[in-house]
C-alpha cells in the first residue's frame, strides 16, 4: 500500500512539473506539502475509516490515483467543512490538535485550492437579470410608479435559497413578453408626471425640440441603464421619437413615451451589465464605479443607485467615500429591503405567508378521539369519491350536510386560523428581530437567543403572552421563564418546517443544519427502508413521533444523518405545527432533551439555545457569513471563497458578532469589488476557467 502510494506521488510530482511549465495552474508545493505534513495527520486520525477498503462516506485518503485525490476539490471542500464544524473525527475517536487541524485546513486553502490571499479570485458572477423585487423597486425609483410584479410576472427561480443568483434567473420568452407589456403600462402610468407632458415645456422649433428630446432621453437612459449612455444610443432614441411622432395622429409626446418604453424593455435595463476599470493590469481588475454603485445599491437596497451614488461614480469618487456611503445607505430606510429580502429568504420568513398548515388537522389531533366525527368524515369522503351524476338525491343532500359539518368543525379552531393578518405579523416578527440586531449592531447571536421579541396583540395572544394591545408590532420583553426568544422559537420557523397536520422534527432539524449551523447532511440515500416497522415496534399504543424516529435511527443506513437532524428537531416538540406551546403529545409528556453530534447535551430548547450561542457560535457565524455572501454576490460559493469566509468569520467573532463587521467585510472584499476579466486576453480567461468551481463543488 505504502509503496504504491509513493509511486503515485512520483507521478503526481511529474504531472505537476509538466503543468507548471505550461501555466501556473496549481500551487507548486501542493503535493510536497501534502506528503510531508498533511498526509501523516490524515493517516493518524482519519484513515482508520477513510481508507480504500472501508471508504466510509465514500471518502478514502489512500486512493490509487493520488493525483486525482489531490485534484479532487470537491473532496477537500468536504474535509474543510467537516473540520471547521468539528464533525470529524467523530466523538469518542482520537482528535488532532487545534494546530494540526489548522495545518490541514491551510494546506487545503492555499495548496489544494491554490488560493492566493494577496490576489484572491473574485469568482464568476453571471450576468444578472433584475428579479421581481428589484424590478419593482427600480421602477418605483426611476418612474415613480408602483408596479405589481407579483401579479404580473412569474415567480423567480431561486438557487441556494435566494432569488439573486444570476445563473438561475432565466428570462423565458413569456417573461420577455411581460416585460414589454409592463414597459408600456408603466410609461402610460408615468406620463402625467413627465416634464415634457406639461404645456409650454417643449420648444416649438423642430431643431430646439430635437435638442430637448436628446437631453431628456440621454438623462433618462443613463439612469435606467445605470451608467452614462453613449451618443449613438441617444441618436437612435431621438430618431424613434421623430418617426413615431411623424405617424398619422401621433404627437411628439407619443414619441417620447415610445422612447421611454423601449428603454425599459432593453436588455441594458433588465440586466445588470458590469464593467471593470479600463486599462487595468490586475489579474482581477476592479469594477468601474458605476458597476460598484449598482452592486452596492442592489445588495443593500434591492434597487438602482440614487443620485448621490451616481454623482460619486461620475466623479470617480465612490471608492474614496466608500465607508461613509455604506453608513449612509445602511441608515437609509431603503435598507429595510435588504432586511426583508435577505432575512425573508435566509430564515424563510416569507414562506409563512403561504405555508400549508391546517389548524383543524393539527388541533383535532390534540383533542381526545371522536369516533363519531371520524365516522362522519369517512362517509363524507366516500360520497365525495362518487361521480356527481351517480349520487341519489338523498345522497346529494347527505353530502352537502356532511360537507357543511366538516367545515363547521373548522370553526371551533377559528382563533388559531392562520389569517393573512396573523401570518403577516409572524413574518414581521422575524424580520424585525433581524432588523433590530442589524440596526443596533447587536451580536448576531441575539437572533438565536434573546429575552425579547416583536409582537402585536394578535400574535401575543397566539403565543399566550399577556399585556400587548393594538395592531402595532413592537418590541416586547418576554416574561421570565418564557421559552420564546430567538428566531427558532418564532412561528415562522416552527410553521414553515411543519407538515400540514403535524410537526416534522426532521424538517426542523434539517432547517437548523442548513440555515443556522451550515452543516447540511447529505441527501437521503435511494431505497429508503419503509417506516412502517417503526410504528409496529411500539406495541400497545400509537407511537409518539420521538418513539418512531428512535426506531428509525436504529438503522445504520439512517442514523448517520438522523443523529444530526433528529435531536435538533425534537428539541422543539413542545411547539406544535402551529408554533403554539404544548406540554404533551398524545397524552404523554414531551421530552425535548438530546445530544448533538458534536457532544453537547441539553434538556430543553432553552439549553439548546445556550449551546448554539456558545460552543457552536462559530458554526452560526460561518453559516450566516456564507448565506449573506451568496445573497450579496449573486452566485454560489466555491473552494476559492473559503479563505474569505474564514477571514470574515474570524473578524465577526473578534467583534462579538456585530453585523456591521460582516456587512462591511463583504463590501470591502475582493469578491465584491472585483471581477474576472470578461473579454479580451484569451490566456487570462483560460486560467480563470481553471479556477472556476465546478458545479459539484458548490456549498450546500
Amino acid at each position, binding site marked *: 500500500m505504502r509503496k504504491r502510494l509513493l509511486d503515485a506521488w512520483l507521478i503526481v510530482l511529474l504531472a505537476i512539473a509538466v503543468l507548471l511549465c505550461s501555466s501556473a495552474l496549481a500551487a507548486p508545493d501542493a503535493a510536497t506539502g501534502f506528503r510531508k505534513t498533511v498526509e501523516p495527520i490524515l493517516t493518524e486520525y482519519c484513515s482508520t475509516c477513510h481508507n480504500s477498503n472501508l471508504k466510509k462516506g465514500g471518502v478514502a485518503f489512500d486512493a490509487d490515483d493520488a493525483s486525482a485525490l489531490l485534484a479532487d476539490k470537491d473532496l477537500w471542500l468536504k474535509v474543510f467543512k467537516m473540520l471547521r464544524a468539528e464533525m470529524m473525527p467523530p466523538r469518542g475517536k482520537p482528535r488532532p490538535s487545534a494546530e494540526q487541524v489548522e495545518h490541514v485546513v491551510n494546506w487545503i486553502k492555499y495548496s489544494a485550492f491554490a488560493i492566493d490571499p494577496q490576489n484572491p479570485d473574485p469568482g464568476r458572477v453571471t450576468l444578472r437579470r433584475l428579479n421581481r423585487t428589484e424590478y419593482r423597486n427600480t421602477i418605483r425609483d426611476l418612474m415613480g410608479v408602483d408596479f405589481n410584479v407579483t401579479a404580473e410576472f412569474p415567480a423567480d427561480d431561486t438557487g441556494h435559497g435566494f432569488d439573486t443568483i444570476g445563473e438561475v434567473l432565466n428570462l423565458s420568452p413569456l417573461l*420577455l413578453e411581460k416585460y414589454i407589456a409592463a*414597459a408600456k403600462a408603466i410609461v402610460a402610468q408615468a406620463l402625467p408626471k413627465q416634464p415634457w407632458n406639461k404645456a409650454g415645456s417643449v420648444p416649438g422649433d423642430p431643431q430646439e425640440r430635437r435638442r430637448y428630446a436628446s437631453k431628456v432621453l440621454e438623462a433618462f437612459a443613463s439612469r435606467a441603464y445605470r451608467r452614462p449612455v453613449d451618443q449613438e444610443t441617444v441618436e437612435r432614441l431621438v430618431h424613434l421619437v421623430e418617426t413615431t411622432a411623424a405617424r398619422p395622429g401621433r404627437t411628439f409626446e407619443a414619441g417620447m413615451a415610445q422612447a421611454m418604453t423601449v428603454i425599459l424593455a432593453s436588455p441594458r435595463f433588465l440586466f445588470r451589465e458590469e464593467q471593470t476599470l479600463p486599462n487595468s493590469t490586475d489579474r482581477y481588475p476592479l469594477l468601474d464605479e458605476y458597476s460598484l454603485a449598482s452592486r452596492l445599491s442592489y445588495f443593500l437596497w434591492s434597487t438602482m443607485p440614487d443620485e448621490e451614488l451616481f454623482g460619486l461614480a461620475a466623479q470617480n469618487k465612490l471608492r474614496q467615500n466608500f465607508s461613509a456611503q455604506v453608513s449612509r445607505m445602511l441608515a437609509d430606510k431603503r435598507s429595510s429591503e435588504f432586511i426583508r429580502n435577505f432575512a425573508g429568504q435566509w430564515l424563510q420568513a416569507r414562506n409563512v405567508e403561504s405555508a400549508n398548515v391546517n389548524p383543524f388537522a393539527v388541533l383535532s389531533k390534540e383533542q381526545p378521539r371522536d369516533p363519531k366525527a371520524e365516522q362522519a368524515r369517512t362517509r363524507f369522503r366516500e360520497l365525495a369519491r362518487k361521480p356527481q351524476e351517480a349520487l341519489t338525491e338523498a345522497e346529494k343532500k347527505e353530502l352537502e350536510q356532511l360537507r357543511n359539518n366538516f367545515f363547521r368543525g373548522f370553526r371551533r379552531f377559528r382563533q388559531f386560523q392562520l389569517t393573512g393578518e396573523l401570518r403577516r405579523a409572524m413574518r414581521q416578527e422575524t424580520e424585525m428581530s433581524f432588523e433590530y440586531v442589524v440596526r443596533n449592531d447587536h451580536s448576531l447571536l441575539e437572533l438565536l437567543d434573546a429575552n425579547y421579541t416583536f409582537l402585536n396583540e394578535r400574535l401575543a395572544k397566539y403565543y399566550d403572552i399577556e399585556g400587548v394591545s393594538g395592531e402595532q408590532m413592537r418590541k416586547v420583553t418576554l416574561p421570565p421563564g418564557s421559552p420564546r426568544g430567538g428566531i427558532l422559537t418564532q412561528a415562522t420557523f416552527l410553521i414553515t418546517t411543519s407538515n400540514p397536520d403535524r410537526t416534522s422534527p426532521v424538517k426542523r432539524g434539517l432547517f437548523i443544519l442548513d440555515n443556522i449551523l451550515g452543516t447540511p447532511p447529505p441527501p437521503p440515500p435511494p431505497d429508503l427502508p419503509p417506516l412502517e416497522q417503526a410504528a409496529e415496534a411500539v406495541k400497545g399504543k400509537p407511537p409518539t413521533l420521538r418513539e418512531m424516529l428512535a426506531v428509525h435511527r436504529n438503522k445504520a443506513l439512517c442514523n448517520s444523518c438522523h443523529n444530526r437532524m433528529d435531536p435538533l428537531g425534537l428539541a422543539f416538540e413542545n411547539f406544535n405545527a402551529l408554533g403554539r406551546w404544548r406540554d404533551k403529545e398524545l397524552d404523554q409528556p414531551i421530552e425535548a432533551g438530546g445530544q448533538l453530534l458534536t457532544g453537547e447535551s441539553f434538556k430543553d430548547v432553552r439549553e439548546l439555545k445556550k449551546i448554539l450561542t456558545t460552543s457552536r457560535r462559530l458554526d452560526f457565524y460561518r453559516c450566516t457569513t456564507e448565506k449573506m455572501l451568496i445573497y450579496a454576490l449573486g452566485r454560489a460559493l466555491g473552494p476559492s471563497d473559503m479563505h474569505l469566509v474564514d477571514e470574515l468569520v474570524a473578524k465577526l467573532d473578534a467583534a462579538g458578532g456585530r453585523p456591521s463587521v460582516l456587512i462591511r467585510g463583504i463590501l470591502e472584499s475582493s469578491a465584491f469589488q472585483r471581477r474576472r476579466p470578461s473579454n479580451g486576453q484569451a490566456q487570462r480567461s483560460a486560467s480563470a476557467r481553471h479556477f472556476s468551481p465546478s458545479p459539484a463543488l458548490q456549498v450546500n
Partner: protein
Amino acid sequence: MSMKLPRGALNRRAFLRGTGACIALPLFESLRTSVFFAAGPAAKLACTATGAPLRTAFLYFPNGAIPSAWWPSREGTDFPWSRTLKPLEKHKAYVQILGGLGHKNAEPGPDGAGDHARGNGTFLTGVRLRKSATDVRAGISIDQVLANAYGHLTRFASLELGCDSGARSGACDSGYACAYQFNLSWSSPTMPKTPESNPRRVFERLFGEGKPGERQANLLRRQQEDKSVLDFVLDDARSMQKRLSPSDKHKLDQYLTGIREVEARIQKTERFGLVKDPGIETPPGIPADFGEHIQLLLDMLVLAFQTDSTRLATVLLAHDGSNRSFDQIGISEGHHDLTHHQNRKEWIDKVADIDLWYVQQLAKFLDKLNQVKDVDGQTLLHNSMIVYGSGNADGNRHTHTNLPIVLAGGGGGALRTGRYVKYSDQPMTNLFLSMAHVLGVRDLQRFGDSTGPLKDIG
C-alpha cells in the same frame, strides 16, 4: 386558507355560461382551416386524416398514484375499470391506459435523493438532469421538439400552463434547482418555459385585452407598438453582446430568443389574420379553489385548441412533491406526506382519493373537448392526443417504472383506443416517438433515452 368558500365559483359559472355560448357558434370561420383542407395529403404535420388540426397536450399530476387503485386487473379492451380511473369510463372510446412505461433517467442512479425533481424534470425531456442548485441542465422537452417542427402553423407554437404560482424560496428537492420541479417544458437544456398560471393572462395573450369586440383592435395596436420596440432593443442587445463573456452571452441569448418569438407572432398575425374574438367576458384571475383554478385554465386550453391558436400544450397541475391538502374532499393532510404512507391503509386510501380527484379533473377536461365540434364534424376530443401522467409511479417508494399514464383522445382516428395495454418495461420516450410519428414528425428517430416507437398505439 382552505376554509374559505370557493370565491371564484360564481364568476366561473358566469364565465362558463359564456363559453357555452361560444361553443354553440359556428367556430371556424376565422381559422383559415381551408389552408389545411386545400393543402391536401401533402400537409401532414399535426393534421388528422381529414385535414383537421391534431392537438396534443401533456398534463402532469404530482407524486405518482397508488398502483393497486390505479391499474385495472386485466389487459385488453374489456378490462374492468379501476377505482382511480373510473371517472374516465364514459370516455372509454377515447382512452388508452398505458402500463409498463418508465423513465430510467428519473431513477437515483449516481445522483441519490431528489426523485420529485427528477420525476418532474425528466417527464417530458427523458434525460438525466444535472444535480445542481444553480447549474441547470435538462434537455429539450418533446412538446418543444414538436413545436420546432410545426409551431409555425399556429399563432402560438405552444402554450405552457400550470397552477403553481407561489414563491419558491427555500430549497427545492435535495440539491436540485427549483426549475426542474416547476417547469414541464424546456426549449433547450438550459431554458425552461415558465408556465402561466393566471387564466386571465392566458385569455388576453390569446385574444387581446379589453371588452368583447375591442380585442382585435387592441391586439393589432399592441403588435404595431411592439414592432418598433423590437427594432430598438435588438440593437441594444447586439451592442451588449459584443461586451459579454461567453457565459453571459448565454443569458442574453435567452433575451434574443424571446424577441424572436414575439417577432414571429407578429408575422403570423400578418399571415393568418387575427383570431376571432370569442365574444365572452375575459375570465377572472386565479380562483381561490384549486379545482376551479384547474378547470378555468383548462377552459382556456379548450379555447386555444378550438380556435387553432396552438396545437401543443403542457399543463403542470401541480409540481411533483406538492404537499397540498384537499379539504374539499375531507383530506387535511398534505398530499406528499400522505404518499409516504408506511403501508397504513388509511393513508393509502387518502392518497387514492387524491389520485381520483385529479383524474376527475381530467375527466372534466375530456368532457369539454368532447362537447366541441371540430372543422371536420368530429369532436376536439377525437382530434386530440392528451397524455395524462406523473413522473413518479409509486410515490411511497419513489419508483419510476410502470408510470401511471393515460393517453386520451382519438388522435384523429389514428389511435387504438378503449383498452388497457401493458408494455414490458419500455422507455416513456418511446411513446413520445410514436406520437411524433402520428403527428407527421417522421424524421424524429430518437428522443431522450428512446429505443424505438411503441409498436401499436395506433
